[in-house]
Every structure is written in structure tokens, then in C-alpha cells.
């Protein structure tokens, strides 16, 4: 039972992290590069995108999950189950990742970008050769935070039959007064989060040459 729940959690969190990273990275880059004073300044696009992302971040996850059911059904063909839970999880994490990417890019010394411009780099070259590699250690840390957050969110996925550790804890541990199940799932969750954080810290340190 515990093993199955763990696999469900890993599936949901893993898949939605990958999807959110893939969607959030370009969004965050657009957000950062179109900001006033940046390489592709576009105030209007920046404001609109910023507003959309803020809306996405302000909707409580449990409501979002229900609200996107039609979309989920359209994408994966069903609105219940582990696979179906990946859709709202990804949608919830994407704006979060976008903001993390934006702040990681803002952290890069303006002088380095200016140096690249002085050498005649195109905006595209600056994004690929300067912004992404320079922000990478920070991005890895941000992605770790995202993954840990998603583990928390995935507990709520039980509401649409997503399963997973959080769901197990609620249904068996809490509703059926099975203290042993409750303790076991919590221990597994703690170990999972610890391991992820350590992995993230290690990878970020490895990548950082500062």
C-alpha cells in the first residue's frame, strides 16, 4: 500500500516538475528579458504576462484542480487518477517556476550582460550563452523548492483520485484512525523531502563556480 502510494507520488511530482520546468523556463525568460531596462524591453508584454502569472499563483490549488477538470479531460482523456492529477499540478507550478526563473535572471550582474552586448552578441546568444548558464545554480535550487512544494500539493490530489502518500495519510491515517499508517507515510515524506533538498543543494554547489 505504502509502496504504491510512493510510486504514485513520485509519478505525479516527477512528471509535473518536468512539465512545469519546461513551460516555466521560457515564460520566466520572457518575463525577465522584457522587463524595463533588460535586453528585449517590452513593457506591455511584460505587464500582461506578469498579470497572468500572478492570477495563476493566487488561485488556491484545491480550487484550481477542480476548475481545470474540463481541460484535464481534454488533455489526458479522464479527470480522475494519478495521470489526471499531473495536469493541475503542472499548471499550478508553472507560474511559480516562471517567477523563480525571472528572479534568478535578475540576480545576474548587469555588467556581464553588458559585456556580452559590447562583444556584439544577439539577444538570443545572450539568453543561451549568458543568462541560462549563469543562472543555472540558482535555477537548480529553485527547481528543488518547486519539487518540494509539489509534494505538498500532491497530497491534495486525492480529491480527484490521484492517490499518493498524502492521500494515503488522509484516508487511512486520519479518517480511519490508523496511526501506524499515518506515521509511516509521514516518515517516508520527510525522508523524501530531505533527500530531494540534499540532492538539489549538492547539484547547485556542483554547478556553481563562484
Amino acid at each position, binding site marked *: 500500500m505504502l509502496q504504491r502510494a510512493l510510486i504514485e507520488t513520485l509519478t505525479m511530482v516527477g512528471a509535473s516538475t518536468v512539465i512545469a520546468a519546461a513551460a516555466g523556463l521560457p515564460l520566466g525568460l520572457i518575463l525577465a528579458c522584457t522587463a524595463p531596462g533588460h535586453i528585449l524591453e517590452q513593457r506591455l508584454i511584460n505587464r500582461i504576462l506578469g498579470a497572468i502569472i500572478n492570477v495563476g499563483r493566487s488561485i488556491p490549488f484545491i480550487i484550481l484542480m477542480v476548475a481545470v477538470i474540463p481541460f484535464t479531460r481534454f488533455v489526458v482523456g479522464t479527470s480522475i487518477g494519478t495521470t489526471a492529477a499531473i495536469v493541475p499540478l503542472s499548471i499550478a507550478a508553472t507560474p511559480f517556476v516562471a517567477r523563480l526563473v525571472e528572479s534568478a535572471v535578475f540576480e545576474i550582474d548587469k555588467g556581464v550582460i553588458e559585456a*556580452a552586448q*559590447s*562583444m556584439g*552578441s544577439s539577444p538570443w546568444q545572450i539568453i543561451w*550563452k549568458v543568462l541560462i548558464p549563469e543562472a543555472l545554480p540558482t535555477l537548480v535550487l529553485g527547481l528543488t523548492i518547486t519539487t518540494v512544494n509539489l509534494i505538498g500539493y500532491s497530497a491534495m490530489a486525492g480529491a480527484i483520485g490521484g492517490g499518493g502518500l498524502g492521500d494515503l495519510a488522509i484516508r487511512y491515517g486520519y479518517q480511519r484512525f490508523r496511526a501506524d499508517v499515518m506515521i509511516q507515510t509521514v516518515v517516508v515524506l520527510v525522508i523524501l523531502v530531505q533527500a530531494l533538498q540534499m540532492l538539489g543543494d549538492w547539484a547547485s554547489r556542483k554547478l556553481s*563556480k*563562484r
Partner: protein
Amino acid sequence: MIQLEGISKTYSGEKAVHALTDVNLHIPAGKIFGIIGPSGAGKSTLLRCINLLEKPDAGAVWVDGVRLDTLGPKELRQARQKMGMVFQHFNLLSSRTVAENVAFPLEVAKVSSQRRKQIVADLLQLVGLEDKANAYPAQLSGGQKQRVGIARALANEPRVLLCDEATSALDPETTKSVLQLLKSINQQLNLTIVVVTHEMSVIQEICDLVAVLDEGTVQECGPVVDVFTRPQAEATKRMLRGTFAANIPPELLSRTPNGHAPRRLLKLSFVGDKAHQPIISHMVQNCQVDANILFGRIDQMKDLPFGMLVLELVGEEERLTAAVGFLRSQQVELEVLA
């Protein structure tokens, strides 16, 4: 090589700042050109106008016969590849090794990886960092980082090197070695170098020509020796105070030795060969006056020796006149103080 015509730049904001007002400059090829001024004078803005990192509100920027300020983005990027820039804070990519940093502009210019390797190796040798090729910037000292910055700026064989306070973050010893490097690059590669600085010593050590900038306008411009020995503008004099100006104690100027014997107080400046000749001794012998040295110093300006002397001459009136005449005939810069 570089021609700036009527450059103006204003930063709008709550209070508009006129960073540059109608700046005209001609920077000849193969020279080291210094731009000096107090902080906030607009030096860096002016330098940035040359490669259009800063777009002037008015005026024209010509580099190597091409007008840059009217170019499209793509042409401008191509033109920038032929201009190197060195920064005060180095601005190296922390995620790249020394060799990869130097290779960056070559990647931008789409040079083949084989040629990149060769060029990078040559440049690291030029700046004396062959053994640091695989180190990351964080592992280098300030001076070494700036050498990487210089190597990177030279990668695409630029015609022009722009240095923005390149030595201001370095200690005096390192500053000297970086300046020597710039000087030798100028000679070896016949590169035009523009140096922005607030340090007189930088101008003195490597520059051929200097422009003094204050409050967004060029106050004075010419060969370093001329500007430093015969400053005209108030801004220049202010800067020279304490360095090349003779700080003569006022008591010396006002005292009257030997009762009321006629005397003259003279300030002499010698440049180049004249600094080596025994002019004073000739004057004393020829004109029979007494000479009393109140102040003196000898400096080096790039490769020119430059001396200054404050003399008190005592003697009969006509002999004093003759002595002053003699000195004038020796073509030394002469100023009668009292």
C-alpha cells in the same frame, strides 16, 4: 579613427541629468587616448557612446569610417565585434573557465572551434595566463581577471579597445602591470586604445592624448604633456593641484631675502631632452645671478621625462632681465611668479 560629433545625452527622470553636452572628439588611430574627469563628469557615458551601449540623443559617432549611430541592430552587432571593451569590474562569466571566457566573443562571431582554440591559446600567452586556462574566474586575483578581460576584448582582432576604469578596482602594483600590458598591446598590435579614468597616474603613464571632461563637456584636449604642463581650463588645474602643480609654501613666495635686493620668482617646466640639460648652471654662468632652488621635481609622462623647478633669482635688475631672457631663449616653459 574615432570621431564624435556633437554628442549629447540627457537622462530623463524626476530631475533630468545632462550627462553630455555637445561633445566633439577626434581620436587618431594607433594612439592611447585618455578621458579624465571627476566622478559624474560623464566619462563612462561618453565611452559607452562609442560602441553605442549608450545611445546619444544627438550627434554622430564614427568609428573607422562607419557611422555607428544610424546602423540597424544587426550591423551594429557586427561593428561591435571589431571593438573590444574592458570593464572596471571585469564582467567575466562565472560559469565559464578562463579559456571559455576568452572564447566567448569568438563564439559570438561564429569562429570555428579549431580556430577558437588557437586564438585563445595565443591570447592567453599574450596576457601571461597560459597556466590558468582551465581555472574559473573566482579562482583568480583581480589583476588576473582583468588580464582575462583584456584577452577577451582582443579576441576578434578589434581596431579599437575601450577601457572603462580598467584599473580602478586594482591595487597600485597590479595597476602598473595592467597598464604596461595595455601599452605593449598598443605597440604590438597598433591598436587604438581609449582609456577612461579618474586617476592622473593612468593618463601620465600610458596616454599620448588626453581630453579633460567636466560636467558633460570637454574642457580641454591635446597631447598629455601640453595639457599637464600648460593647463588652460579650470577643471584641469583643479585636477593637477597636488600632483603636477608646485605646492610652494606661501611664506617662501612672500619672504624678501637680503633686505630689498631685486629678485624674481620663476617656475620652469622642462619636457623631453631639455630635462637633461644643465640649463640653470648655464644661466648662472652667463648672467651672473644667484639662483636658489625652492622646489623641484622630475616625472615621467609616458616616455617623456618632465621636470619642474621653482627658482628664486637674486641679483641686479638688468642681470635678472637677462637671465629671464636667456631662459626664454632655451625654449623652456617659463612663468614669472613674482
